[in-house]
C-alpha cells in the first residue's frame, strides 16, 4: 500500500553506518492514507503521478510535492493553483526542484480548507527520555524548531508508576492549554486517541500533524509526517521499502553489508559501524581520504569477505584497507576470503590488511603466503596505506 522513499543521502549514510537500515519516512499522502485508516480527518484530495492525471477543476486548490524531507514549502513545493492548466504547469515546474536531494514524482492535489487557527501536534519517540512524548503547540504551521519553547507543551507518555499511554488527565490538560472551543472537546480527545493507536499499532517513531486545522466542529490534518521503525517492518508486510537504484548498494545489501560511497582514494572494508567510522577518522587524521567503504558486519563465511573485496574492486580504489577486529568475525576466515578474492580477481590495487582478535595468527600466515601485507595494529596499517596512496598520487592528498 505505501510506497516508500529514501531519506536524504547524508542521513542515510549515517543511518547505514549504524545499523544497515534505511529510515522509513512515509510521504505525505502515504501518511494521510494511515490517518484515514485511523479516522483522522484529512482534506479531500487526489494523488497525481503525472500532468495527464490532473482532473478538470475550476476553483482554488493546493498542490503539494511529495518528498520525504522538511522545508518543502520554502523550496516551492506547496502552491495554490486555480484550475487544471495551472496545476499542470505547476507540476512541470515542481518536477525540476531539488528538495534536499529529492525530486518529487508524485503530487497531492487537495481542496483548500478554510480555518481560523492551526495547531501543531505529534507523538514522537524521545531517545533521551526513553519514552514516547506528546508535543503540542497553538503555533502550528511552521517547523517545530521555529516555535518558541514556551509555546510547546510536552507530555511524557510513560507515567511515574510506569504505565504507558495518554491518560485522560493529559488530554484534559492539553485541551485547556491550547484554549480550544468547548464544542471540540470530544473530537480533540478522539483525535489524540487515534494518533496514539496509529503510533502503537503501526510501530511508528513519529506521528506528526502540522498544521492541524481547527474548525468549529473538529480538526483536519493538513499535512502528515510519519516515520516507521524499520526494525518492526516484519510486522508490517504491506509497507515496502524501495530498493536502492545503486547496483553496488544492492549487491552489498543482499550480503547484509553496508556500502557507502565517500569519494576518496582508499577503499575500506571494516567490521562494525563504530570501528568503520573510527577507521575513516584515523585515515582523515593522517591526511588520507576514504573512498568507498563497506561495513562487513559479522561473518564467518569467507565467501562474504571475497564478495566484499570484489565489490570494492569494481570501483578501482588506489589502495584497499581491510581493518578487521575478530569477534563474531574470525580473522582467519577473513584472510581466506581475501586470498580467494585476490586469486580470482587479480586486483589492480594494493591491499593492506589489519587483523586482530580471534584467529589472527592463522590469518596472518595465510596472507603472508600470498604476499599480502598484514598488520597487528590499526595505526600501523593506516600509516602504511595513507603513505602509499599519497606517494602513488604524487602527494595529491591534502597535506
Amino acid at each position, binding site marked *: 500500500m505505501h510506497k516508500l522513499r529514501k531519506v536524504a543521502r*547524508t*542521513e542515510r*549514510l*549515517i543511518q547505514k*553506518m*549504524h*545499523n544497515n537500515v534505511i529510515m522509513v519516512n512515509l510521504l505525505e499522502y502515504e501518511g494521510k492514507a494511515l490517518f484515514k485508516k485511523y479516522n483522522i480527518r484529512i482534506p479531500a484530495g487526489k494523488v497525481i503521478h503525472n500532468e495527464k492525471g490532473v482532473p478538470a477543476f475550476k476553483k482554488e486548490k493546493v498542490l503539494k510535492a511529495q518528498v520525504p*524531507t*522538511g*522545508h518543502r514549502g520554502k523550496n516551492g513545493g506547496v502552491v495554490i493553483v486555480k484550475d487544471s492548466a495551472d496545476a499542470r504547469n505547476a507540476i512541470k515546474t515542481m518536477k525540476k526542484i531539488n528538495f534536499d536531494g529529492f525530486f518529487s514524482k508524485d503530487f497531492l492535489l487537495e481542496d483548500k480548507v478554510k480555518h481560523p487557527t492551526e495547531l501543531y501536534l*505529534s507523538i*514522537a*519517540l*524521545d*531517545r*533521551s527520555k*526513553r*519514552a*514516547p*512524548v506528546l*508535543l503540542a503547540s497553538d503555533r502550528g504551521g511552521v*517547523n*517545530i*524548531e521555529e516555535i518558541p519553547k514556551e509555546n*510547546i507543551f510536552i507530555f511524557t507518555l*510513560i507515567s511515574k508508576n*510506569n*504505565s*504507558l499511554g495518554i491518560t485522560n488527565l493529559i488530554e484534559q490538560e492539553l485541551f485547556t492549554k491550547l484554549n480550544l472551543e468547548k464544542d471540540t472537546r470530544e473530537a480533540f480527545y478522539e483525535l489524540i486517541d487515534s494518533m496514539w493507536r496509529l503510533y*502503537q499499532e503501526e510501530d511508528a*517513531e*513519529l506521528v*506528526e500533524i*502540522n498544521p492541524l486545522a481547527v474548525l468549529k466542529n473538529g480538526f483536519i490534518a493538513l499535512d502528515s509526517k510519519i516515520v516507521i*521503525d524499520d*526494525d*518492526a517492518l*516484519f*510486522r508490517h508486510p504491506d509497507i515496502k521499502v524501495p530498493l536502492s537504484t545503486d547496483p553496488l548498494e544492492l549487491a552489498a545489501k543482499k550480503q547484509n553489508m553496508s556500502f557507502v560511497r565517500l569519494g576518496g582514494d582508499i577503499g575500506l572494508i571494516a567490521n*562494525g*559501524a*563504530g*570501528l568503520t*567510522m*573510527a577507521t*575513516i*577518522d*584515523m585515515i*582523515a*587524521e593522517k591526511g588520507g581520504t576514504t573512498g568507498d567503504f563497506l561495513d562487513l558486519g559479522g561473518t564467518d563465511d569467507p565467501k562474504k569477505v571475497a564478495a566484499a573485496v570484489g565489490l570494492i574492486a569494481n570501483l578501482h580504489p588506489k589502495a584497499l584497507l581491510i581493518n578487521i*577486529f*575478530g*569477534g*563474531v*568475525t574470525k580473522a582467519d576466515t577473513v584472510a581466506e576470503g581475501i586470498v580467494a578474492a585476490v586469486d580470482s580477481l587479480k586486483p589492480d590495487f594494493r591491499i593492506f590488511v589489519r587483523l*586482530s*582478535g*580471534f584467529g589472527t595468527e592463522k590469518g596472518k600466515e595465510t596472507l603472508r603466503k600470498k604476499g599480502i601485507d598484514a598488520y597487528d595494529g*590499526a*595505526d600501523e596499517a593506516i600509516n602504511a596505506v595513507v603513505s602509499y596512496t599519497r606517494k602513488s598520487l604524487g602527494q595529491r592528498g591534502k597535506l
Partner: protein
Amino acid sequence: MSILIDKRTKVIIQGITGHQGTFHSEAMLDFGTNIVAGVTPGKGGANVYGVDVYNDVKSAIKKTGANASVVFVPAQYAKSAVFEAIDAGIKLIVIITEHVPSHDMIDMLIHARTNGARIIGPNCPGIATPGIAKLGIIPNQTLKKGKIGVISRSGTLTYEIVNTLSKAGLGESTVIGIGGDKIPGTTFVDALGLFGEDKDTDAVVLIGEIGGGAEEEAAEFIKNYFKKPVVGFIAGVYAPPGKRMGHAGAIISGNSGTAQSKIAAFESAGVTVASSPDKIPVILNRALL
C-alpha cells in the same frame, strides 16, 4: 568487586542452540562464566558444551537457581524471551540481538523497571569482568584484569579499545557495551553511576559515536556527579553531517548529535577526548598519576 556481575552470578543463555548462541556460550565458558543452563523452546533435554538445555526459563531457574540471562534469540522473539525471563525472576538480562523494534524495547524497559530487573542492550557486545565472568561476545583474549571501567555504544570498536588498554598493561575492571540502539536498557549515565560506586575502578573510558544525545547527557552527569578521571572517544568525526529534519525529532534532541557537540560537551565536563584509540592509554596513565 566489580559491577553488575560477581562470582554468584549464575547465567542462562536464551537461544543457546542457535549458531551465535552456541559459539559464544563456548567462549563464555572458556572465560570462566558460570553458565548453569540454556533455554530454547522445543529443545529441552539437549546439551551444549556440557550445559543442559531447558524449554523455558522457569524450569531452568527451578533446577539451577539462575539469576542472569544472555539473550541471543532473533529480534522478532526478543520481547517474549525477555518478558519470560523477567517474569521468572531474572534480574540481569543482556540482549545481544540486533534489530529489536523500539516499541518492543519500550515495553521491555517498563516491564524490567516494574520488576526491579536491569536490561543491557539490545544490539550490544554485553558485559565482561576479567577474572569473574563474561555475559556477551567481547573476544576473551582482548580482556585483562585491571582497574579501568569501559562503557561503549559500539561493538568492534569496543574490542579495539579494550585490546589497546590490555596491551598497554592497564586492564579492565568491567567492560559494558550498552549497545547502539535508540532505546538502550542501560544508559551511559546508569553505567557511570555504577562505576562511580565501584572501589575497583580507578578511571573510566567512555566510547561514543555520532547521533543521539547520550554522550551529552553523560557529560552533564560527569560534570555534576562523577569524581573519577574519564577519557572519551567519539567515532564519526569525519562522517558527513546529518540534516535538519523539520520535525519533532529536532526539538527533542536539540542540537546534539554531531561529533563536535559531543567533543565539546566532554571537554567542558573535564573529560579528555582521545583523537584515536591508541592515544587512550597514554592519557589514562597521565590522569592516574
